[in-house]
């Protein structure tokens, strides 16, 4: 892994962990169950830190989970993930 990429991931990891996100290795998601938000690894890797911070600060939805993916998940995927994540 190139050093610059490694450093960028370090920063993003810290941002996520400080905001209470934990890694779900079965679904490859960083998840905050309290906020009911989940970020895909691809989204985190592709987006700059500023976008990540912005999405973390966005208010949670009144009902259900908010998924931050590069490609919006289908209803089927969304409902399976909501069951798994609780």
């Amino acid at each position: 892994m190139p050093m610059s990429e490694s450093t960028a991931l370090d920063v993003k990891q810290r941002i996520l962990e400080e905001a209470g996100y934990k890694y779900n290795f079965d679904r490859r998601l960083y998840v905050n169950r309290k906020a009911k938000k989940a970020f895909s690894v691809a989204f985190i890797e592709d987006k700059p830190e500023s976008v990540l911070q912005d999405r973390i600060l966005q208010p949670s939805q009144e009902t259900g989970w908010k998924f931050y993916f590069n490609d919006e998940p289908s209803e089927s995927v969304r409902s399976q993930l909501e069951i798994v994540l609780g």
Partner: protein
Amino acid sequence: MGDRTIEDRLREEYFTLLPHMRRISGQLETKVRYHLIPISERLKKYEQLVVKSRVKDCESALEKLRGFQEGATFDRDRPDLYTLKSLKDLAGVRVLAFPPQRLTEIDGILLQHFKDWESDPVLDGDGHLAFKYSGHYQTGDQVRAEYQIVSVLTGLFWEVEHSAMYKPATQFRGTAESFRMKKRRAAVLNALRAFETEFENLVLNE
């Protein structure tokens, strides 16, 4: 009885493809060994060249395909989207070599015989950690194959990592994507490369 799951359909596909995967991995290994004979025959005492082939096991193949989906979840309304044929490494050959300077030489030789194959190198900060190519062994093959050229220590670490961490339960494969694990893996690979380079320098300068 309910509808079959996507996983069950993929398991059926796997066992349909398995004879092809075995044939292709065997043929690929033979071809690679054959073209590397000129190097094998003139290896010095401290040098190594090992060629190994393998067929991806069923659950690893499913898990890899699932891991390619964001959220590692198949869309149950779109089973048509998924086929194991989309994986590039159902059949594979790994060439392990020491010293690392042999890697480029091996790559040059094999490239002449796999001209149409797609290059997908594993890069690190200073260059190639491994050369990796995928393609169809013969026109009309249903299964894609892959060959990798990597230094001995890195290749052996990948084997240990796979068998110790992910083999017991394939879903643990997802741990490899965590940023913490990526960082640790990069540190191990850097250490192994430094070790190998130091050994190479000592041996070559003797």
